[in-house]
């Protein structure tokens, strides 16, 4: 899995959660095993902001 870099601080973010988002109308990324888009949550240790992206394994 590639590391996510904070767009504000430029440092490596911490990957700490996976969450199914059922509200996204992004059929391309819907994981059939979970019924929604599996998203990774990454938080920056510098500024504390969280960013998500579709789980790489589901792409």
């Amino acid at each position, binding site marked *: 899995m590639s590391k996510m870099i904070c767009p504000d601080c430029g440092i490596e973010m911490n990957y700490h*959660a996976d969450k199914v988002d059922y*509200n996204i109308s992004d059929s391309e990324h819907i994981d059939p095993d979970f019924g929604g888009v599996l998203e990774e949550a990454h938080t920056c240790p*510098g500024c504390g*902001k969280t960013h998500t992206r579709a789980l790489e394994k589901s792409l």
Partner: protein
Amino acid sequence: MERSQAVGEQHMELRKLFIPVILGTTRKGRMSEHVAKFVTAEFAKREGVETQLIDIRDLPIPIDDAGQNIRYPAFSEAAMRADAFVIVCPEYNHGYPGMLKHVLDTNLKEYIHKAVGIVGVSAGPFGGTRAIQDLLPVLRELGLVTIFWDGNFSSVQSAFDESGNLLDQAYVRRLDKFMKELIWMAKVLRHGRENISLE
């Protein structure tokens, strides 16, 4: 120690915890407003804590759509910056206000692994416990981590005077326990979000 971890620990010392208080009702004559202002004022006294009262009545969120399609940027930014949330939740006919859920549902990633505590409000003797119990699974699904202390304002019409001054000082000690637990959980989860990897 990796650079990101060192930076994180340094910044964690510098950054105050941000714990907004969400006033979860839009109704006219709401007594919960007194509660929310009291709770916000108590959090504002805590060293190392920044707070803000978020009144859902002030959020221009449409009611003909739902979820992240109707997110209000200022609310989402506050939620993103938050380390924990307090939700002041009145009990209406044994449930939580529909508008509160409508507003909470407009965010998702902003809540993940953040602490939340509920302050129940009721005109009767049970301090909003039934609304709290119903709200807990909603918060869990949103990715929030609930604490085991609640606030319970029973017979709220007697707890404050007309100007919103607290009449029963027992609430100060009760809220102190709630705040300590929420602040502890906010610190732990901030450390976890920023330093403990899922894999």
